[in-house]
């Protein structure tokens, strides 16, 4: 057996005073062998990204620092190296790939320049040789037309391509260890699958050890050889991928895996007799390209193209698609946060799009939204009860009664009524999303439009919020238009789904039937791209609760 590339023993990372715990990481043991992919899994705040920072020696010192332990890279103690020596290792023998391909590249430098920089820093190659190597690398990561991408700026290439560029950059000096910090989290499923395949393929070709940091067990199932599970800075479980995924031992791992939405849609329910509460008819939205008076116009973008659907009382309709498919535009149009170019949106028989501003205000109470980012969508300067009561008060409710009602709603979304007088920042992401739901319910709407309501949340929290939504829907006989990019989530909640691509509906049907037998090639591709689709989480429902 060969020596491990990376060997971490008893690593502890200290947090500054006043943090929620003294150590971000307490006692991590981990090793990565050459040609092995080790997944470091944990929810947000588990300390997994700080581990990467510690290996690269890029922690925001002195606030956050390594307190204890050793990090050996090819037998060499990284913690004992000087900054100069460390600089030579970074990018050369240890490379890192980051999460956000959008922001991780310098917007002012061409792609070629940025890959070239690694070679300039670590090799003595001449200009021509470096250029040849960069083109070779771009080709290696399967970028079509490397020559034109070499001269492109990051904003001129797509998200998936940017991540390929990041990978090319990491591979430039043939590193022995690659740290991939959530490299596919910001990507669409189909792109994610391509990138994961690429990482697998390159790792087999180059033989580097990869430390793959992720929160997604689907991705783990797709790529990992071995798995290390972190919970609040403690290593709770470690083993081969098959062991951890199929026979998790630690309760935390069991809970995490139990929370993963299974790809099993609910039993179809019959809504043929229920009245239609929301009907969209021939919606079109074209975004005109910006241009000045005299300059020529660029081609306009059609975000939604002739879209129609109906939603019946008590039903949940999923709108799924990748970024740019127009699904968010749909949610904005039916709530008239965005004006449609033509068509009609009937809420309970009244056309929302034809309403005068005064009528519209009256109509708004019937259709309410739950937004994606629970942090950004709640006013940080207002108390929770005011946030919830604001809508009814604007619509003429008695403030006192509205606040009392707000407290009842908090109970309904399983928060303590004592939460009423606190501010949004005092809550966790999941709790904030519950507040968002209470805020929507305060208007006693007939329809709730939920735009990616759980995509900013950790899996375990996600499961709870989904369960709450399903619960409320059944108890209050609500209709939900549920916009999501995550097919697993859609499978959990939606009775029917609409699959969108480039502004058009490519397929629509009852969730169970559509998932079992997708007819459109795009739907088939989407379903085939779900990470870990080959792995069915073991049934742990009994002890995960």
């Amino acid at each position: 057996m060969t020596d491990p590339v990376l060997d971490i023993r008893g690593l502890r990372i200290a947090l500054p005073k006043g943090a929620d715990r003294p150590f971000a990481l307490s006692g991590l043991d981990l090793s990565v062998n050459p040609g092995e992919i080790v997944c470091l899994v944990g929810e947000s705040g588990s300390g997994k990204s700080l581990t990467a920072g510690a290996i690269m020696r890029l922690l925001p010192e002195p606030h956050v620092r390594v307190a204890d332990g050793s990090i050996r890279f090819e037998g060499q103690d990284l913690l004992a190296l000087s900054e100069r020596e460390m600089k030579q290792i970074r990018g050369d023998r240890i490379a890192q790939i980051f999460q956000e391909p959008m922001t991780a590249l310098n917007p002012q430098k061409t792609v070629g320049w940025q890959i070239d920089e690694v070679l300039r820093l670590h090799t003595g190659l001449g200009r021509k040789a470096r250029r040849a190597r960069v083109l070779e690398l771009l080709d290696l990561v399967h970028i079509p037309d490397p020559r034109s991408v070499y001269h492109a700026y990051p904003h001129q290439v797509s998200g998936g391509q940017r991540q390929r560029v990041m990978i090319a950059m990491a591979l430039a000096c043939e590193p022995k260890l690659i740290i991939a910090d959530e490299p596919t989290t910001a990507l669409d499923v189909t792109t994610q699958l391509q990138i994961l395949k690429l990482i697998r393929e390159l790792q087999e070709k180059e033989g580097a050890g990869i430390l793959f940091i992720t929160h997604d067990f689907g991705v783990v199932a797709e790529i990992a050889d071995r798995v290390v599970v972190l919970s609040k800075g403690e290593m709770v479980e470690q083993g081969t991928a098959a062991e951890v995924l199929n026979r998790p031992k630690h309760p935390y791992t069991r809970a995490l895996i139990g929370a993963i939405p299974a790809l099993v849609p609910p039993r179809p329910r019959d809504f043929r007799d229920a009245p239609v509460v929301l009907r969209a008819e021939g919606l079109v939205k074209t975004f005109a390209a910006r241009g000045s008076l005299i300059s020529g116009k660029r081609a306009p973008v059609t975000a939604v193209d002739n879209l129609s659907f109906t939603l019946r009382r008590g039903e949940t309709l999923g709108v799924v698609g990748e970024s740019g498919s127009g699904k968010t535009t749909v949610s904005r149009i039916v709530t008239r946060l965005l004006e449609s170019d033509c068509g009609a949106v009937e809420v309970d028989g009244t056309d929302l799009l034809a309403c005068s501003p005064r009528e519209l205000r009256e109509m708004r109470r019937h259709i309410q939204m739950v937004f994606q980012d629970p942090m950004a969508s709640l006013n940080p300067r207002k108390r929770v009860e005011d946030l919830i009561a604001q809508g009814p008060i604007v619509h003429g409710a008695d403030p006192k009664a509205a606040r009392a009602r707000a407290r009842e709603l908090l109970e309904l979304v399983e928060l303590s009524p004592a939460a009423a007088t606190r501010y949004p920042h005092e809550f966790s992401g999941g709790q904030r999303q519950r507040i968002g739901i209470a805020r929507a319910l305060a208007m006693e709407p007939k329809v709730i439009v939920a735009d990616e309501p759980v995509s900013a949340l950790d899996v375990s929290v996600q499961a709870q919020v989904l369960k709450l939504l399903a619960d409320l829907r059944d108890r209050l006989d609500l209709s939900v238009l549920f916009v999501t990019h995550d097919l697993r989530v859609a499978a959990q909640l939606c009775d029917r789904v609409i699959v969108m691509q480039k502004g058009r509906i490519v397929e629509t049907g009852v969730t169970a039937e559509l998932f079992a037998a997708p007819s459109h090639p795009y739907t088939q591709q989407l379903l085939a791209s779900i990470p870990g689709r080959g792995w069915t989480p073991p049934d742990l429902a009994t002890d995960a609760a």
Partner: protein
Amino acid sequence: MTPGPGGATVRAWPPSGTPDMQLTQVLSYALRRLLQAVPVVILIMVGTFLLLKLAPGDTVDALVGDMGGADAAYIARLRAEYGLDQPVWVQLGRYMAKLIQFDFGWSFVYEQPVAAILWERLGTTLMLMGTSLSLAFSIGVGLGAIAARRAYSLTDNAISTLGLIFYATPSFFLSLMMILLFSVKLGWLPVSGLSDVAAFYTGWDHVLDVALHLIMPTAALSLIYLSFYLRLMRASVLEVADLDFVRTARAKGAGETRLMIHHIMRNALLPVVTLLGLQFSTVLGGSVVVETIFALPGLGQLAYQSVIQRDMNMLMGIIFLCAIIVVIVNFLTDLLYARLDSRIALK
């Protein structure tokens, strides 16, 4: 960070091609901006003309006031001579007709064509403001960057405090103190004026003489402007240094100097350039206070005197000049922006 009114938009794939193509691009962009500027300038001129007419009193009132009074017939004759007896619309029409031929009219106060005086004064102001702003910009950006890299250290505190002090000092006070120190006590620099009238210098001696005269006003102005750039640059560098791509560069093994030069500076400069553009257009109107204290014949002083003396043609000329300068500087800022930020293209 909104660029000028020309509406620079995000450039689409594929990237623009050869330098030749970029030149024609810039030229066609310039032409378009010029066409857009025409209605703007006309509106400004008509608006100010009417506004000035609304103000009580005219050139004749000011002249007669200076003379210590005159009889009604004489005043009426003067008005007729200057064309001030006509209805406002006629006066406006006449003025605009002349303006279209770039004839700014005659200054009855200076007894010279307006254009000649403006031209002379513009030179002085451009020299003063151009130097002050360039100095303020480059030193401010430099110091701001240094302060940000050593944030919260002694160096940073010293730089920031100095900046704050200059920011808080009124320009007249700073100017007077400088005169007191360098001219009165030390005798190193001339007190006021643009050149030593009695010395009749020519050639390089004249240039040197003017430069000596400009040292103090330039220093006073740039010290005050400097603090804006310093503070903005410091904040901007701190912000950019926290961004993801800087972390990426660090993970590539780049050193601090390299990070600063290649990754942070250019991105941090963008908001500072916006301020430079905004300030350039306003300060070219001249600084009344500094020009008055140092007795420099600049535009600011001219504008002030023209208001007092109701020199209508002169005022309109100054306003026209300022409008043109704002348009030009806006255009240049947009060009600079497109050069600095690859995401912005000239459309």
